[in-house]
């Protein structure tokens, strides 16, 4: 009788919980195996489309295999860089530390080293607050045409409309700064 109570009291809850966890984990593994290839394919297609949007005259891109810049370890760093096959410019993908964690952005730079566009492709920031920085035209288009940022400090007043009041604005500014540095290190846009 005591053994039965002991089983009911201590063993059964553990066994049931572990069994449910194992079944759920298996179901997740199966779904992941099916969905992940499609997710990776979608992400690659979306990245290619964004590169084309940032450099519309490019006729394809080749990945840069050299050294990628890091501004702050694990916080602000270049993820990849692609040069246009016809030499019209470079698109740099930067990961930058924002309010909700790492924010992924792409920066297009043309032959003259001027920014052609900035686009945020992934983020975990509060929608409607920090995201105003890239939903509002002024914020992102304000970087267009700039060839050099004086510093990583967004409050130095070089860029109009970006005040640095939100963490996202600061993160975007650092990302753009690092992208320009990367293009410079690659020998300038070709």
């Amino acid at each position, binding site marked *: 009788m005591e053994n039965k109570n002991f089983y009911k009291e201590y063993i059964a*809850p553990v066994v049931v919980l572990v069994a449910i966890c194992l079944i759920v984990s298996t179901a997740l593994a199966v*779904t992941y195996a099916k969905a992940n290839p*499609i*997710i990776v394919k979608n992400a690659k297609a979306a990245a290619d489309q964004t590169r084309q949007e940032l450099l519309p005259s490019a006729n394809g891109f080749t990945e840069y295999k050299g050294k990628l810049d890091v501004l702050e370890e694990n916080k602000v760093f270049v993820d990849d860089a692609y040069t246009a096959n016809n030499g019209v410019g470079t698109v740099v993908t930067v990961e930058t530390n924002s309010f909700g964690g790492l924010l992924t952005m792409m920066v297009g730079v043309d032959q003259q080293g001027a920014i052609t566009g900035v686009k945020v492709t992934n983020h975990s920031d509060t929608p409607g607050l920090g995201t105003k920085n890239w939903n509002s035209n002024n914020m992102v288009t304000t970087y267009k045409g700039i060839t050099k940022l004086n510093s990583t400090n967004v409050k130095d007043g070089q860029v109009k409309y970006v005040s640095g009041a939100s963490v996202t604005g600061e993160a975007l500014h650092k990302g753009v700064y690092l992208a320009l540095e990367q293009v410079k290190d690659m020998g300038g846009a070709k």
Partner: protein
Amino acid sequence: MAKESRLKYLTNGIIKENPNLVLVLGTCPTLATTSSIINGLGMGLSTAAVLICSNIVISAIRKIVPDKVRIPCYIVVIAGFVTVVQMIMQAYTPALYSALGLYIPLIVVNCIILGRAEMFANKHNVIDSALDGIGMGLGFTLTLCIMGAIRELIGSGTLLNFRVIPASIPGMNILNLASGGFFVFGCVMAAVHYFSKDKSKIRDNVGEADLFREAQDLKKKEA
């Protein structure tokens, strides 16, 4: 009788026990994702899918789950379904996934799902629980769509991204923000309560008020 009560389980969640407007559960995603109809519909359907599946599974395992660990077991089941829905959305509807993004994982802690698991699926059989999940899911989706339509129309002048109000008339931007969401939520809730409440009771209340006023008038006259 059984058929009638099953129909009741299905229809209860739509108006009478609407999870949002009557039970006032799941308010956070309601306010956050109803800036447009599409977002509301996406959030409503994904929550409904998780709700139906979790209700079925929780009802099926209710007899083997010891009472002590029932809440962790429910959370594991619900989190599992949410992750599955998240991966499917990311793979097949990437645009909707990026629009809802942050709010999808939050379905795990949605009070409606855990609430129905504890209040209903825990005590009823699989079919009844599935019907309750469908009804509650429909009620939640309907509320989100109505709120999304109102906010999108007045806030941006569009419906399903088609312009309805001419661009020359600026939208009321506040409706795109959380404060506007609260306002619309209150209005929709008041409307549902007005139309679904027993009117005879309202008349009774008015009658009592009238009696009170008459008594006050009499007192004044006597004075």
